[in-house]
């Protein structure tokens, strides 16, 4: 019981924090920064406990006497929780100035954000489909509100409506899928579905497969894979910067946490049936995402479209899991971490600029001469772009390298070749930004480096990206390129069937 309480602490802290902030937000005199700090405090404590749990958890269930086996606690879920929490902390701290520069933020924003994180953490722990559905919806519904948080902007409301209608429609498929699966198996536990599939290999399981495909549709929609990707660009552009940042990094990881669990456990017996679909989806995502990214005129749009391409790479690795690659799963986790850091930094710089200069829609032109105005920030942005483009000496390169490795391992040289071709295309739109920053004279005089928590964090993330790309065991206790992979594969080992 005590052990369970210990394991549930991070989750409970986030939930209590959310409730506390909801009540706290009624107090009118509190400054926005204080809300932010309180939120970060809750998240940080939760993160620290989660880090300790990661060291000594193997395979456990939360309150088994009450919830049966609904919530699993293993290294994988803990690792994902660590990512959500650090993502949320970084998002909040980096955007501290941005919150202050806009008048529509208040205490509820932080409460909603915490609820969303609570949903994601539940999702990482889930071992059962109904819980998964509830967690996804909890994470999403709060996000619907957050997307439309800028109530002065019609664009923001439009984005919210688009997201809420399409998102709930997609959500319906999941519950339909769950119903079909339950109809066949008579249980919604991941383990039960797996053992049913193993024991009924010769009987007709088409209904079950259809159900699972429906669930897949929802998940593919939520990560923004083709052909369900059309919402991504509009919603990302319409939402406020902190929310875009949160969606692009943290939400994506959350959906991958359940996708990975489902795929590694339940889908394992029916790989032959679905692999072709995954492959086609991956290829389509890569191609359509690249096309979209080239066409964007707004920076936010380019980053949004490029996030679709990054999903394509991870789907490629998902396909490789199915074909039998032993590294693909850890490659996905590594890629998630690398994308998480790079995108966080890139969006962070955008929000830093938007908070500084009252620029609502950052277009490419706003970056003209940025390197002469703010050399350090431009250097950090260059690192983020290089990492997103997969240029060597950044963590993004290793992320792509591991994925291509795992695809080549399955013998799909052409697929890896396509991936490399897409990476080549991406050089164009990422380097366009670098070119703009360095090639044009700056209209404004050179500014001093603004020492603030947000800018220091951005530089810190940039250093982490370089460290992740070239780091070795030189510094003990700091996970470099090698350590992260070890952590990822360690986490995957604890996943039970």
């Amino acid at each position, binding site marked *: 019981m005590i052990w369970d309480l210990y394991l549930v602490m991070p989750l409970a802290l986030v939930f209590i924090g959310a409730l506390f902030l909801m009540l706290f937000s009624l107090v009118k005199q509190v400054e926005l920064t204080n809300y932010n700090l309180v939120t970060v405090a809750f998240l940080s404590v939760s993160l620290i406990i989660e880090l300790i749990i990661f060291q000594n958890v193997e395979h456990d269930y939360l309150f088994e006497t009450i919830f049966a086996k609904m919530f699993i606690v293993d290294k994988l879920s803990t690792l994902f929780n660590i990512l959500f929490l650090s993502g949320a902390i970084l998002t909040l701290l980096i955007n501290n100035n941005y919150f202050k520069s806009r008048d529509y933020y208040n205490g509820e924003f932080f409460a909603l954000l915490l609820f969303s994180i609570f949903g994601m953490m539940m999702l990482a722990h889930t071992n059962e489909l109904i819980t998964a559905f509830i967690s996804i919806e909890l994470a999403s519904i709060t996000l619907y509100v957050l997307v439309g948080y800028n109530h002065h902007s019609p664009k923001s409301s439009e984005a919210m409506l688009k997201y809420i209608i399409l998102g709930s429609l997609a959500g319906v498929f999941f519950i339909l899928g769950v119903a079909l699966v339950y109809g066949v198996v008579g249980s919604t536990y991941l383990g039960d579905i797996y053992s049913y599939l193993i024991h009924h290999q010769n009987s007709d399981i088409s209904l079950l497969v259809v159900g699972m495909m429906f669930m897949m549709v929802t998940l593919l929609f939520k990560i923004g894979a083709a052909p369900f990707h059309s919402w991504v660009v509009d919603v990302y552009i319409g939402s406020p910067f902190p929310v875009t940042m949160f969606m692009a990094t943290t939400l994506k990881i959350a959906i991958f946490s359940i996708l990975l669990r489902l795929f590694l456990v339940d889908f394992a017996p029916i790989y032959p049936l679905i692999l072709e679909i995954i492959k086609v989806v991956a290829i389509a995502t890569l191609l359509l995402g690249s096309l979209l990214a080239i066409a964007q005129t707004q920076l936010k749009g380019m980053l949004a479209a490029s996030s679709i391409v990054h999903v394509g790479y991870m789907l490629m690795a998902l396909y490789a899991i199915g074909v039998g690659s032993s590294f693909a799963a850890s490659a996905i986790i590594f890629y998630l971490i690398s994308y998480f850091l790079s995108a966080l930094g890139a969006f962070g710089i955008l929000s830093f600029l938007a908070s500084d200069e009252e620029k609502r829609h950052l277009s490419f032109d706003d970056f003209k001469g940025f390197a002469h105005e703010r050399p350090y920030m431009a250097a950090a942005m260059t690192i983020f772009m*290089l990492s997103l483009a997969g240029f060597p000496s950044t963590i993004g390169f290793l992320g792509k390298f591991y994925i291509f*490795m795992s695809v080549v391992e399955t013998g799909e040289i052409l697929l890896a070749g396509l991936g490399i071709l897409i990476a*080549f295309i991406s050089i*164009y739109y990422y*380097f366009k930004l*670098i070119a703009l920053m360095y*090639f044009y004279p700056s209209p404004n005089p050179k500014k001093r480096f603004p020492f603030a928590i947000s800018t220091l964090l951005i530089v810190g993330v940039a250093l982490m990206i370089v460290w992740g790309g070239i780091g070795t065991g030189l510094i003990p206790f700091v996970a470099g390129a*090698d350590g992260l992979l070890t952590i990822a594969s360690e986490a995957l080992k604890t996943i039970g069937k």
Partner: protein
Amino acid sequence: MQHLLSMILFLPLLVAFTMGLLRVSIETLRMATFGSSLIVLLFAVVVAFYFHLDGGMQFVHNSPWISHYGINYSIGIDALSLLLLLLIALIMPLIFLAIWEEQRKGYFYNLLLLQTGVSGVVMAQDLILFYLFWESMLLPIFIMIGAYGYGMRHFNAMKIIIMTVLGSMSMLLAIIYLGYTHYATVGFWSFGLSDLTQLAFDSKTSILLAGAFLLAFAIKIPLFGFHTWMAPAYSSAPTAIVVVLSAIMAKLGVYGLYRFGFTLFEVPLGFYTPYVILLCLIGIVFYSIHAIMQRNLKRIFAFSSGAHLSLITLGLFMTNIYAWSGGMYLLATHAIASAGIFLMIGMLGRRTQDIQIAHLGGIASIAPRFAFFFAFFALAITGVPGTGGFVAELLIIIGAFKYHFWVGVVAATTMLGAILFIFWTLQRTLFGTTQEATKHFGDLSAIEIGILTPLVIILLVTGIFPSLLLDFLDASLSANLEAFKGGVK
């Protein structure tokens, strides 16, 4: 001693990082940059001093980097690497001297990063490490062309990066496949060059893999057909980068071909040999004709570089000892001569603000020292007797005749073509009557002569005592050639 190479490699990077962090003034930055390049030169000379001529790969250092995939930080040098390392270490301080007056800090940071990149390429013995340096040397070039260049600099910067990255990406795919095959056949991961040479492939796969590597190097050299980035990039780039492009980067293409192409793919390269030789021969003639047609000094010498690099590549594919030692010899002497000529074009450009030949003329009468040095480097490029280029080109042409009569004949036209366009250029630039742009042409200053003199001395020494450098390369080249021939049979 053991870490000497690592120090050469990372000193410039470290200086760039520290200086950037401390936000030093331009004067400090200039001194630190120049100082670091001198220290690197000193280290490189020390390395050369302790280098054993017949010792194969030396100063080897290995430490694990990504142990999951058997990727090591593995560096070492043999005779050719050492030659290129010395070239880089020598040319960089001269570049820093040449841009001494420069007020934009970006110049120094980018060149420091570039130095680390190019030094890494010649040292790396692990394919992923090699790829890392190979790619990262592009970024400073991209930024410098785009930010400090001339003409259509944005477009040309994008063009050079897109084209060269296309090559490197195809190489990356091949590297990944090689690494995986090593895992599948031997049982553990490795990307080390010495491990990967042990692999055997069926002929179709190996031809594809060799092609992927060849593409990367062909774009970098550039061979005929892959050259469209060359002239625009040369004409847009600032002096410092033109020197690097022609004296170092193009040579690294040949180096990569020698180090990785010929070591990993002995047999399949035979499949490509006729095509590459054809491209080289077309290139020699085509670039020479183009050089004659150009109106811009930088473009003339860009195409002349192309012609000589085609000749070097031709020498490499002749696979006999004459052509190989000639090729390596030309690699060194052409690097020195073209560094000299492009540094001088930069000096000329600073004086006249114009490097169109039509606007120049009469320089010899008012600036005799300039004319002397300019003519010397130009002639060194054509390979007149007495300069190192002569010996080198002669050796390659002998090798080419040994390979096939007509190949030898076409290869020999390099010298003819070079003499044609160089003399014509010299006549129009240095002689004749002075024009508006050259009316107040100042002669070379003491510093400028100081920059150019070491290059002149090296060219003369290599020309008069060719055996110095040839003996230096001979042992390593014949060993590799034997290994290569053994692989083919």
